[in-house]
């Protein structure tokens, strides 16, 4: 134990970059839950839209981890 830390600084950058998509995905599912709570019968329609929005927001985080390993 000599207190040395090894690793890639890229990962810290990725951690910072993942904040944005994290907040975005949180907002998407918050809106989805709100929508279902107000109108439970719209669940089927909202689910597809929520998952789609999740996938698009998540793409940013995914590109981030790709670049963290590639660069």
């Amino acid at each position, binding site marked *: 134990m000599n207190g040395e830390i090894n*690793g890639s600084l890229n990962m810290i950058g990725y951690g910072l970059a993942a904040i944005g998509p994290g907040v975005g995905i949180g907002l998407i599912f918050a809106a989805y839950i709100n929508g279902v709570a107000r109108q439970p019968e719209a669940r*089927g*329609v909202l689910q*597809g839209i929520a*998952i*789609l929005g*999740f*996938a698009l927001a*998540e*793409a940013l985080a*995914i*590109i981030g*981890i*790709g670049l963290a*390993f590639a660069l």
Partner: protein
Amino acid sequence: MHLVNVASRLGAAEGKEFHAPGPGDFEFPPLFGDGTFFTKPMLIIVLGSLAIAALFYLASRRASLVPAKAQFVGESVYGFVRNGIVGDSIGREGRRFVPLLTTMFVFIAVMNLAGIIPVLQLPATSKIAIPLFLAVISWAVFNYVGIQRHGFVGYFKNMMFPPGLPKPIYLLLAPLELFSTVIIRPITLTLRLTLNMFAGHLVLLVCILGGEYLLIEKGGALAAVSAVPFAFSIVLTFFEAFVQVLQAYVFVLLSALYIAGALADEH
């Protein structure tokens, strides 16, 4: 038989240092010695394809009005893609794409789930070639049906110049739409699937190898702490099962939406 990636783990076994898992854990030597080309991901593809073929053969053999077990499973999957994905996005005329999209869904789901099946324990889709090829198929299909429906010029005009916007906006919008539809879509489809599986597998490796290191290499008081990463690895395995099926769903849903967008008359 190199079912476990020995090369990258040798360092972990020799020294007392913890060897953090990384991209090297996804590189597998050939199964039958040097010089051959057959690696573990290929083995997973072959086994998975055989399993899918067997499932759908059993499902469609002696199809009857009152379904037996295998037929019920096959029809549930087909019905899920037809009603849950295609029905909501493309609509009735999407019926002709259901066989393609169902095959895609089952193939991706099985390749992903190989990541939590004991002994295999590697999502074949974490190798970029497989999602890339699937994304190219999806890209070719949605561009083909769009050009077939609207003609070559009409398709690109529909895509780049949606009506009802002020003229100067098109300077910005047209190249962006072209870039996003023709170039970005297949890239994000590929990366989303590959890196989800890659990152998921990596997280499992960190938990399991970290726990193993604490238990076997460190020993003593730290051996008791290894219960924490092992417990996490069990929880994360269930989470991974969810993510793996969800990503197959997302891939097929996006493919269906791209086809729907290409077929739509006006945006």
